[in-house]
């Protein structure tokens, strides 16, 4: 694969980083105004690592995923920033260059496997098509490889089910087939956009297990998008919490669950059902709704819903946009409250209710 890019390979300072998203912005001009779906997102990802992106719906997770795959090319979307994949910037890459990357270097699985599969072609046809785009092989070899992949993702009787249509598969089987399709070219980066949201809990666990296994086998980097912190806790190494198109907290999974520091993350944690122990209090969903991405609140994006904005002097929550600042190694938080005070609030006011 070659990507012709006008920007020289400068990427991240860390040589282990495989994907580096830098100040990514995806804005959609619409009749109502400019929708700032992603506004200054930065994160790094290594091979073999699973990064969770969490946030309520509408926070820009899917738009980010599609930007990485270059799927906004050819639309009206305005994209800026950098997406360094193995040292090459994908933002300025042409549609043709992206085509070579899609499926082979970066693959994606989507939330709703039924609507993501073409209703008129067999499962086998659709998966082997994904293989043949990037590999010059005969139809028979593609078929063989497809059946292998179907077996690998745990579809019983794979050879016979090759000729089934998507509607003849169950939800879980469809998502397995999508995973087989995504992994057939052994991509170095797998993006799973809410892969288990449409599935029931048992199937959900199986699918996540499968993603982890395949990560181990291929040593791929994985981005797991979800609005379910439970999924993150079980699966991911690192987490980015997104709110209103921005990262509001980032860090290793352990930090995020043990010492979260951003009020929005606290809100997410309080609204998460616990499997491990009995809650002291009721689940408390975050009051209010996600911000408009056209008229983003001035100051902190979270301010209309934040219980703690009065703890910051000088009304700064409503006037100054907070930066995403490190608070511990690898752990960054976007909030005006002083880190010491945040930890105090966590201990005294948040932790007891989790």
């Amino acid at each position: 694969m070659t990507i012709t890019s006008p920007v020289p390979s400068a990427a991240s300072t860390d040589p282990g980083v495989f994907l580096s998203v830098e100040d990514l912005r995806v804005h959609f001009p619409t009749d109502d105004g400019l929708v700032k779906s992603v506004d200054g997102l930065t994160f790094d990802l290594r091979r073999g690592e699973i990064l969770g992106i969490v946030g309520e719906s509408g926070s820009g997770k899917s738009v980010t995923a599609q930007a990485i795959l270059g799927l906004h090319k050819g639309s009206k979307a305005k994209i800026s920033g950098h997406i360094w994949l193995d040292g090459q910037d994908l933002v300025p890459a042409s549609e043709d260059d992206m085509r070579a990357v899609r499926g082979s270097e970066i693959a994606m699985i989507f939330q709703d496997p039924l609507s993501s599969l073409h209703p008129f072609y067999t499962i086998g046809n659709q998966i082997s098509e994904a293989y043949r785009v990037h590999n010059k092989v005969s139809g028979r070899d593609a078929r063989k490889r497809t059946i292998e992949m179907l077996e690998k993702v745990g579809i019983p009787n794979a050879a016979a089910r090759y000729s089934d249509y998507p509607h003849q598969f169950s939800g879980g089987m469809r998502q397995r087939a999508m995973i087989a399709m995504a992994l057939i070219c052994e991509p170095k980066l797998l993006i799973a956009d809410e892969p288990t949201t449409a599935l029931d809990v048992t199937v959900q666990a199986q699918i996540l297990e499968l993603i982890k296994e395949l990560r181990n086998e291929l040593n791929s980097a994985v981005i797991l998008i979800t609005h379910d912190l439970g999924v993150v806790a079980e699966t991911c190494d690192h987490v980015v919490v997104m709110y209103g198109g921005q990262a509001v907290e980032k860090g290793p999974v352990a930090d995020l669950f043990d010492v979260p520091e951003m009020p929005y993350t606290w809100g997410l944690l309080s609204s998460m059902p616990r499997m491990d122990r009995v809650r002291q209090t009721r689940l408390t969903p975050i009051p209010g709704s996600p911000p408009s991405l056209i008229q983003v609140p001035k100051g902190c994006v979270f301010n209309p819903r934040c219980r703690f904005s009065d703890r910051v002097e000088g009304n700064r929550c409503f006037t100054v946009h907070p930066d995403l600042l490190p608070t511990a190694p690898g752990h960054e938080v976007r909030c005006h409250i002083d880190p010491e005070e945040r930890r105090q609030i966590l201990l005294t006011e948040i932790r007891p209710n989790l």
Partner: protein
Amino acid sequence: MIRFIIYRLLGAIVVIWIVSVVTFLIFQAVPLLSHTNPVYFYTGKVPFKPGSPQLKALTHRFGFDLPLYAQYWHYLSGILFGQTITDGVSVPIKCPAPCFGYSFRQNELVGTLIAQAVPVSLSLIVGSAILWLVGGVSVGTISGLRPGSAIDRIGMTGSLAAVSLPIFFTGPVLLLIFEYTLGWLPDVSYAPITQNPVQWLRSMILPWVSLAFLFAALYARLTRSNMLETMSEDYIRTARAKGLDRRTVVIKHGLRAALTPIVTIFGIDVGTLVGTTVITENVFNLRGLGFLTISSIQQQDLPIILGVTIVAAVALVVANFVVDILYAVVDPRVTV
């Protein structure tokens, strides 16, 4: 699949049977409601005084004095097995199955008249259907892929104009240009394809275009909106995410889905046109089923109207049947 076909076939037969009953009843009702002896609608005149024994004899000969079910059976058995027709004066006429009766006005078997008209109608319908399908789908696809672009606007404005222009306008305009002004088509009289294919083509080209014009416009709009909808489907995103080139995404994944519902509409449209292309046939002086229908209505030639009605109904039912089968083939989700 076999069971599905048999089901649909049985359904089609039932519908045709119902059509035969309904048309039969309508043509029973007409003489009754207009207080006219049914003999009039068969022979064009009532040769004897009302109530005269001669008229009674004639009515009896045609079977109009029989009970309704017997008359229906007479009519149905004629279609199924043929019959011998006589007015009691002339030489009896053998009318083989499917016998739609005899037009005493035209002195011809209805079946023969229909058989002469069908090739003309089929030439017209099939040719223009191909034209409008190819034309409409192409324009619609191109427009649907670039909504709001100049090419989309030209295509859609053009098709709006085309839907608004009636055939009795476009037809004569085409004739004026190509036959009279440019002189490219000096003689457009119809010739059967089997006898003179070149003349057949020459006679058909303008009717095809003017009929297709109207439908192409509808199909362009339909294809455009289907294409727009399809291209925003999740599976199109999946196709792109695989790294497929645009052609494959558009044709294999997009068009395939966008055209599937058009199969249905196309079949029904073609079926409906049998017997209803009256204006086109009139403008271009083609003696097809539409022309036959209109002239027989004007002359109140009941046997012909009856025959054409049945033929048109059968055409529609057959089109429906074919569409159902085709749909089951193109859409695997249809359970068969």
